[in-house]
């Protein structure tokens, strides 16, 4: 590598890059310097003074975590004065930290599993600390070699342990104020939900007025827990449990594909998940789902044996019996009468074999991903650019100068993907958000454009028009890479700004500003999820977004690009391996109607499908009753197994080998952390068994790795991949054409595979004002929002049953014109009635900042967190509802 510098640490020559600190250089070179406040990925802080060193030719003892490494530097880390200093620092820390566990004379005799009840004074024996034997402070004390004659007396702060907030406990009696948690929250996550309070002798970590995390802007991602070196912050579930093994695998709750270290205890339960710092997809970060929602694999209601419906009841059966029934019955439905759907979290191996089985054995093309209800989000990228996938990497967004987010509640549905956005904004990037709902990113946005739902396309047309009119585009890029420029430009004629304003309800001024921001700063990243976009408008909208990326010259560059935010965790992988709807077959959007018409008579559903296809296909669940034969492979009894003829127990992500492809095209390895519950087996194994029994050839795989090798042969982008390689390099981004190729973080860096790219004419985006209020009964559209923090609203935290609860007045914002029509004024009590009959009470706020015809509400994320904590449903995390815009009626109360 260029620009290397060489320094000497403890007589050893160490090479490092400029910008690294002495501590980082030493750790990289395998030289350990004790530290407590430093944490990988955070800025130097220099608070704990544990990492002091001597530098030749320098006075004093600088902290190595703040000392930049310099060429020719001679550093000593273990001299007597330095060691003495560290011991002194530790003794001061221990004057406020319980340390019976460190000074006990039996410390070497007690095994790591034992808890000591007798040998130290009762108030601070080992068992008061849940981090027993996982404590960095304890390890540091042992390493530094503090004298074990430190008196047991210390200043115990005697603070109440905070146990009333969701998911984790905070015991500030154990806090050493290293501020890692505060920095994790501020620097890494951009939330600032906790802070350092007071000063000198009484300094501590806390929240404003010491109240709950529920109102402080906490997103319950657990980053602070992972960073805490002591037992001050711990996960509440399995708080006291000890791990016997740790396995690196992938969280399957969303398409970000975070790598997690899964800790398993001696009873084979998943007790903790910790973000993997060395994973490029998440850099150690997780979210509330991945941190606190993966222990569902332990649940006692997991399916453990195959079940066959006999006399209307599901009854336990052996694999032999169940597979035989499935193979026999399916014989009758070969051809178009059979359909298969893969759940959102199946692996590439599962998805590949499911489509192979469906096409080769069943002779049907009716195979799809159950979450593939918005194929238009990705398909146009393939047609226009060459690859149907995101063009860049998730964390490259941090290097963007401008960011556009369209209709996505990223912080909840693709949480870790929102972290680089927030970090970029903190570093000075400009964020434009288009969304009728108020979500967390709108709170961070410089410009929040709030169109009428359904008018997003027209708004984008307006933005493209301004870019063309003001010549803000990247002409050089256009000339080099694009054709149909004239065709594209002529299609902009319909997007007169005055008309755009009339259609969208967004002032012209803001449209112009947005265009200038997005075209004015490069690189710019575009992220979109198509939430609440009506089906016919999705494809034109995505094509317009591709146009935007092209005219601003933002493809093929680090920090620029197009990022479709997918629905299912492995939707990208399923698409890659062919488990996705194609022209000849029926996809998830059509298949249930075909069941209703009697064309499809047998189905196989693989993997968990919450609410069957995101609740977006109406009548899907009811249609299942019309099937002659239904096989469900699942991990729990659900509303689907209720309707199944045969239920086959599937292994969860934590029990199996496999690969998943995340939404930045990164193929990552799943590894088993625990044993299968009962007779449960991986989905690919089940499907291979069924295929084998039905006479299918080419289904004899010794293991998942063999399935993947076949995928690597069949899928051109995967050719250079194998389990062995994925293990060595910890994931690869396709295309990876050879066994030496290091993967492709940014697509189109060397131009486009098809030569010139065809700019799309804008079409299908209604030039007519969107008809708000399709029905007379429900004339308004309701945009429900959710944010982390609303300092302008009064919130009360009350103590519920063991948990903190939020109490506050909820407001419904309405346009002055709508308020007049409804006959309501500021402060009036109203009820909002949805088409499904739900009623919600609100107080009216009249605002002209939202478009006419839209009413909007904003909830606090803390409420959702409390609900999730209180829920006993093992599948609560996948069931978190998105924020859907729905038609409503507003009624005056009193």
């Amino acid at each position, binding site marked *: 590598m260029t620009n290397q510098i060489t320094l000497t640490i403890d007589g050893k020559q160490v090479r490092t890059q400029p910008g690294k600190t002495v501590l980082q250089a030493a750790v990289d070179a395998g030289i350990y310097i004790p530290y407590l406040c430093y944490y990988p990925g955070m800025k130097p802080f220099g608070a704990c003074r544990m990492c002091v060193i001597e530098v030749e030719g320098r006075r004093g003892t600088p902290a190595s975590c703040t000392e930049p490494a310099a060429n020719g530097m001679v550093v000593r880390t273990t001299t007597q004065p330095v060691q003495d200093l560290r011991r002194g620092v530790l003794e001061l820390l221990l004057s406020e930290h319980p340390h019976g566990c460190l000074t006990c004379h039996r410390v070497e005799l007690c095994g790591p599993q034992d808890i000591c009840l007798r040998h130290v004074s009762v108030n601070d024996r080992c068992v008061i600390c849940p981090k027993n034997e996982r404590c960095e402070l304890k390890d540091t004390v042992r390493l530094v070699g503090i004298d074990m004659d430190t008196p047991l007396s210390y200043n115990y702060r005697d603070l109440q342990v905070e146990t009333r907030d969701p998911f984790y406990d905070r015991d500030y009696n154990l806090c050493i104020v290293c501020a890692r948690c505060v920095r994790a929250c501020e620097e890494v996550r951009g*939330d*600032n*939900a*906790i*802070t*350092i*309070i*007071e*000063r000198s002798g009484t300094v501590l970590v*806390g*929240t*404003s*007025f010491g109240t709950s995390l529920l*109102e*402080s*802007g906490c997103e319950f991602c657990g980053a602070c827990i992972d960073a805490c070196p002591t037992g001050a912050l711990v996960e509440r579930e399995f708080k006291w449990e000890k791990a016997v093994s740790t396995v690196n695998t992938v969280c399957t709750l969303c398409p970000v594909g975070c790598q997690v270290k899964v800790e398993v205890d001696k009873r084979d339960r998943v007790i903790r998940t910790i973000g993997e710092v060395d994973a490029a997809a998440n850099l150690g970060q997780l979210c509330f789902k991945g941190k606190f929602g993966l222990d569902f694999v332990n649940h006692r209601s997991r399916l453990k044996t195959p079940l066959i419906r006999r006399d209307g009841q599901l009854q336990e059966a052996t694999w032999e019996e169940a597979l035989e029934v499935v193979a026999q019955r399916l014989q009758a439905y070969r051809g178009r009468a059979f359909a298969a759907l893969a759940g959102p979290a199946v692996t590439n191996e599962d998805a590949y074999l499911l489509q192979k089985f469906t096409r080769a054995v069943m002779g049907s093309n009716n195979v799809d991903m159950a979450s593939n209800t918005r194929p238009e989000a990705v398909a146009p990228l393939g047609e226009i650019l060459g690859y149907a996938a995101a063009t860049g990497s998730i964390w490259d967004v941090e290097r963007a100068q401008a960011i556009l987010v369209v209709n996505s509640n990223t912080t909840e549905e693709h949480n870790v993907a929102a972290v680089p956005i927030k970090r970029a904004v903190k570093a000075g990037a400009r964020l434009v958000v288009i969304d009728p709902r108020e979500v967390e990113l709108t709170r961070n946005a410089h410009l929040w454009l709030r169109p009428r739902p359904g008018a997003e396309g027209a708004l984008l047309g307006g933005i493209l028009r301004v870019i063309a009119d003001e010549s803000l585009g990247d002409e050089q890029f256009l000339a080099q890479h694009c054709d149909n420029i004239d065709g594209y430009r002529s299609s902009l004629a319909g997007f007169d700004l005055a008309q755009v304003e009339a259609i969208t309800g967004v002032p012209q001024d803001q449209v112009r500003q947005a265009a200038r921001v997005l075209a004015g700063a490069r690189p710019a990243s575009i992220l979109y999820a198509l939430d609440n976009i009506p089906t016919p408008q999705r494809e034109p909208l995505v094509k317009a977004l591709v146009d935007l990326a092209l005219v601003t010259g933002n493809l093929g560059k680090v920090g620029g690009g197009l990022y479709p935010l997918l629905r299912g965790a492995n939707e990208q992988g399923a698409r890659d391996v062919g488990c996705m709807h194609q022209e000849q077959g029926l996809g998830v959007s059509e298949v249930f109607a075909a069941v209703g018409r009697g064309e499809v008579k047998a189905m196989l559903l693989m993997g968990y499908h919450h609410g069957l296809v995101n609740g977006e296909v109406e009548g899907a669940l009811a249609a299942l009753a019309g099937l002659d034969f239904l096989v469900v492979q699942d991990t729990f009894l659900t509303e689907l197994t209720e309707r199944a003829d045969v239920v086959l127990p599937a292994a969860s992500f934590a029990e199996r080998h496999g690969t998943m492809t995340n939404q930045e095209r990164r193929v990552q390895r799943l590894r088993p952390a625990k044993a299968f519950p009962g007779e449960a087996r991986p989905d690919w194994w089940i499907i291979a068994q069924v295929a084998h029994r039905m006479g299918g050839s080419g289904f004899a795989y010794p293991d998942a790795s063999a399935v993947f090798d076949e995928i690597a042969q069949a899928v051109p982008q995967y050719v250079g991949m194998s389990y062995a390689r994925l293990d060595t390099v910890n994931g690869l981004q396709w295309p990876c054409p050879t066994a030496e190729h290091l993967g492709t973080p940014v697509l189109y860096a060397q131009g486009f595979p098809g030569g010139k790219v065809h700019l799309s004419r804008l079409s299908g985006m209604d030039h007519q004002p969107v008809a708000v209020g399709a029905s007379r009964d429900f004339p308004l559209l309701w945009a429900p929002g959710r944010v982390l*923090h609303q*300092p*302008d609203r*009064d919130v009360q935290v009350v103590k519920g049953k063991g948990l903190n609860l939020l109490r506050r007045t909820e407001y419904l914002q309405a346009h002055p014109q709508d308020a007049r029509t409804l006959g309501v004024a500021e402060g009036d009590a109203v009820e909002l009635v949805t088409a499904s009959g739900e009623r919600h009470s609100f107080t009216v706020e009249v605002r002209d900042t939202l478009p006419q015809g839209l009413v909007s509400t904003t909830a606090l994320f803390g409420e959702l967190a409390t609900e999730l904590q209180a829920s006993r449903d093992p599948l609560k995390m996948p069931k978190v509802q998105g924020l859907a815009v729905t038609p409503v009626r507003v009624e005056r109360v009193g």
Partner: protein
Amino acid sequence: MSTQDIATLRQRTQGALEAHRKAARTVTVLSCLLAAHDALGYLPQEAIEEVARSTDHTINDVWGVASFYTNFRFTSPGEHTVEVCWGPTCHLVGAMNVLQAVQEALGLQGEGETADGRISLKYNTCLGACSQAPVIRSDEHVLGGMTPARALALLASLRHKQT
């Protein structure tokens, strides 16, 4: 506190912050907190929230700054403030007797507000009037030559005084 009172506190903070923004050359979290403290006499939760909103920080950022400074107070002060000096000079000429009498009369153990919220007691280490020691400050007035009896008379007059 009633909703009305909360709304008033928010409005008063907003007013103070607006005036501060117009007058000040640089606006920081600290300067906003000072402006709010000057206007309200203390920093209630609503003031922290308003400062957070106007400076685009979270309430915790603002609280981190506010709680660092011991001269900010977070509970409402009494209608009148009595400061008893216990600096070396006052101490030598009997300040502790005065302080004891005041504390007994107010029903307080240390610093704080009386139960009825009418009088705040604070300690002071020098009011710069050592020649008149022992000294008490009653709101803006410094009163010298204090004795327990005179102090009690002062408290009685404060109790009857309208704000």
